[in-house]
């Protein structure tokens, strides 16, 4: 048995370190550490509740709208207000733009460059993939970055700037777009479709959203080989390297339900049990945050009753992240969880048998891009510039509430307690806190730690690309993890 440290990781949001125990050329145990802590949960205490709307986006420069949406949802619940339809649509549109931008950044800038590593030289696809995806030098970044910048004009138009927009309020959004701006939104969403249909998929969005099973996916990969498309290129690599067998996860999959601006969520909420294939409701009361392996004091507690007290010398701890558990169990969150819970046949089929895996996570993320892009077109069309975007939200002096939303990387929850008009307690569980959670008091590892076990590293040890694929398939956001 040898112990390896992998880190610091590049092309990851924030800092990340792994400790791997390797026996017989495969990972026997993994520990993931979030080595960065800022203390937002303590900084928020004592401030006026609505000030959270300006502070929480700054937890993260890539999921800032998600953080804003969770805070707005929590305050909305505390105040008991409902935004007018325009406010819900505008918020969903901005949130969708950020989430798609994150999915695309992950695929192009963070995930694919690992296939350009020297260990793959000699594979039939190596040269083409390297020319396309090599970090900094590949041609893909030049296609992606302008498209992504244009997409984020959606947030600019609706909310002033990205990242760290301020326009998202409990009562709606502050910007009532006029007809001209609505037309700019139409054009911007059309540009997104053009990028996706020409460059990423080389196929119509509807065809991607309709891919029903692995056979259809294979047919898509082969049919696209003549006309290109980055998604098909990935699928062919995934077949060659058998990424469906890599990074297996057998935990339940959870989604809080995504894009609720129009009332009914676009992707429904629930917990998928891979053993039974059933979806049950999310029992928020059963969430606990365990701090056994974190440099934090205190026992397991529900986030509405938890606190955050650093204990940097705590023995046995190995990072700043808490270990969230649902009814005592770790759960995986993210685009795959959202699509599986929502019942997308392709997503269910890709995890059937062996559980979640690298292929399924990446495919679900990109198919979700297609589904959300189609929804954005409908939402823009539903905006009614003559009607209100915001409703009055009276201040509240005492309340406790939660805001549960879906960020690009999965389930994001904010729990707020307001006393005498000030924030008395604020707790955050972000998606990567779920996925990259450390061991709990029973010694049960988190989803990534489980998924890494069994990964063959061979002679390359810590340098094996397989480790990178598994870690990055979750699209970690480490600054959110420990916040």
């Amino acid at each position: 048995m040898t112990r390896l440290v992998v880190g610091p990781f590049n092309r990851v949001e924030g800092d990340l370190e792994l400790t791997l125990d390797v026996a017989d050329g495969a990972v026997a145990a993994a520990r993931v550490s979030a080595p960065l802590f800022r203390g937002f949960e303590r900084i928020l205490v004592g401030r006026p509740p609505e000030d959270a709307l300006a502070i929480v986006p700054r937890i993260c420069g890539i999921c800032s709208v998600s953080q804003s949406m969770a805070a707005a949802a929590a305050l909305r619940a505390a105040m008991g207000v409902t935004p007018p339809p325009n406010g819900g649509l505008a918020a969903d549109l901005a949130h969708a733009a950020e989430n798609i931008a994150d999915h695309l950044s992950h695929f192009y800038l963070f995930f694919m460059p690992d296939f350009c590593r020297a260990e793959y030289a000699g594979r039939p696809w190596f040269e083409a993939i390297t020319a396309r995806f090599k970090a900094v030098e590949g041609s893909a970044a030049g296609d992606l970055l302008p498209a992504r910048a244009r997409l984020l004009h959606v947030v600019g138009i609706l909310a002033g700037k990205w990242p760290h927009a301020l326009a998202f309020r409990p009562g709606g959004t502050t910007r009532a777009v006029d007809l001209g701006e609505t037309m700019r939104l139409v054009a911007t969403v059309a540009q997104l479709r053009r990028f996706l249909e020409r460059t990423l998929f080389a196929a119509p969005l509807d065809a991607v959203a309709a891919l029903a099973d692995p056979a259809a996916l294979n047919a898509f990969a082969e049919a696209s080989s003549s006309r290109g498309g980055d998604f098909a290129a990935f699928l062919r690599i995934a077949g060659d390297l058998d990424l469906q067998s890599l990074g297996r996860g057998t935990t339940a999959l959870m989604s809080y339900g995504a894009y609720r601006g129009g009332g009914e969520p676009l992707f429904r909420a629930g917990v998928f049990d891979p053993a039974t294939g059933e979806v049950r409701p999310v029992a928020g009361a059963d969430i606990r945050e365990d701090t056994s392996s974190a440099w934090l004091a205190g026992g397991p507690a529900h986030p509405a009753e938890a606190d955050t007290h650093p204990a940097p010398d705590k023995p046995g701890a190995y990072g700043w992240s808490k270990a969230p558990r649902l009814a005592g169990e770790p759960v995986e969150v993210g685009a795959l969880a959202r699509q599986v819970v929502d019942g997308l046949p392709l997503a269910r089929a890709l995890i059937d048998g062996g559980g979640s895996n690298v292929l399924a996570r990446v495919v679900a993320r990109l198919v979700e891009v297609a589904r959300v892009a189609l929804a954005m077109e409908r939402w823009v069309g539903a905006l009614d510039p003559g009607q209100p975007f915001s409703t009055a939200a009276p201040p509240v002096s005492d309340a406790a509430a939660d805001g549960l939303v879906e960020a690009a990387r999965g389930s994001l929850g904010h729990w707020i307690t307001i006393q005498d008009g000030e924030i008395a307690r604020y707790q955050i569980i972000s998606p990567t806190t779920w996925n990259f959670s450390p061991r709990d008091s029973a010694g049960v590892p988190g989803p990534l730690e489980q998924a890494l076990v069994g990964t063959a590293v061979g002679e390359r040890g810590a340098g094996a690309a397989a480790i990178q694929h598994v870690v990055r398939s979750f699209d970690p956001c480490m600054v959110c993890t420990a916040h």
Partner: protein
Amino acid sequence: MDAPRETFYDVIRRQGISRRSFVKFCSLTAASLGLGASGATTVANALETKPRIPVIWMHGLECTCCSESFIRSAHPLVKDVVLSMISLDYDDTIMAAAGHQADAILQETRQKHKGQYILAVEGNPPLNENGMYCIDGGRPFVEKLVEMADDSLAVIAWGACASWGCVQAAKPNPTQAVPIDKVIRNKPIIKVPGCPPIAEVMTGVVGYVVTFGRLPELDRQGRPKMFYSQRIHDKCYRRPHFDAGQFVEEWDDEGARKGYCLYKMGCKGPTTYNACSTTRWNGGVSFPIQSGHGCIGCSEDGFWDKGSFYDRLTNISAFGIEANADQIGMVAAGTVAAGLAVHAGVTAVRKLSGRDDHHPHA
């Protein structure tokens, strides 16, 4: 023994960027820097003849919003050229290497370009618990930061974190996060505040520094004058409504739809020095005030602990606001310690920027 060092132009051409694009880039850079009609030639000449200045980009306690802003610079050409130009010899977020290989590149660049590279810092060091709140490659970030700064030519402090501390330094500042000039005392530091800074401001600053090999003219707080010499309020398109006493009273009310002033909603535009109301965001699409929300003053020191973001400013008068950034900076640097730090920073910067000491804010 050394081979001649590559120029920027060599690098740019090697990246497959055409001469035509290069010339266009030079014009854009010159325009954004306010260099006038002959500026493009000056920029082009510098890039063709000077050796490329390596840039090392480090991340401390932060949220990566600065990188996000940077890579989204409005003009894709600017972004491409700047990226090729500085090559980001070391950048955590986008580079290819991982693990100890990445650390090795960092050390190699440091030794090879000793005293010649620009260190760009995003985020800041936490000092509590001996730096344990931000461990990078098994070592406290603060150690790595000081080490890398020691061998640099100059330091760029990206964003509110590196410049002032930002929200992680808000009370009670659990990690004792401090701006980088609290730990880097021996190098000129240019502060590019904002949360994040505007993409065009970032590319403008880095473009200037790598083109001319020195810092642009700075104000007393260490900010580049070309982007931080005016209040948001000075150039705000809603300013006539402020002067006319027409204010938004509630989000999305009738006044909001007419574009009235957001002063009563807590707008900090009158006391905030930044280019938002002129350059705007996301490629000139909008900025926070245009979205119907007040400015929170995210480029100002201490913006996170000045009362609620929604409190009305009480220290401005309707007409004749005649303080400039340097005077406000003098007031802000109230304590002896802070005063000394500012002074030390200014002295160091003067050496590099060659500024006329007798007219610090002409």
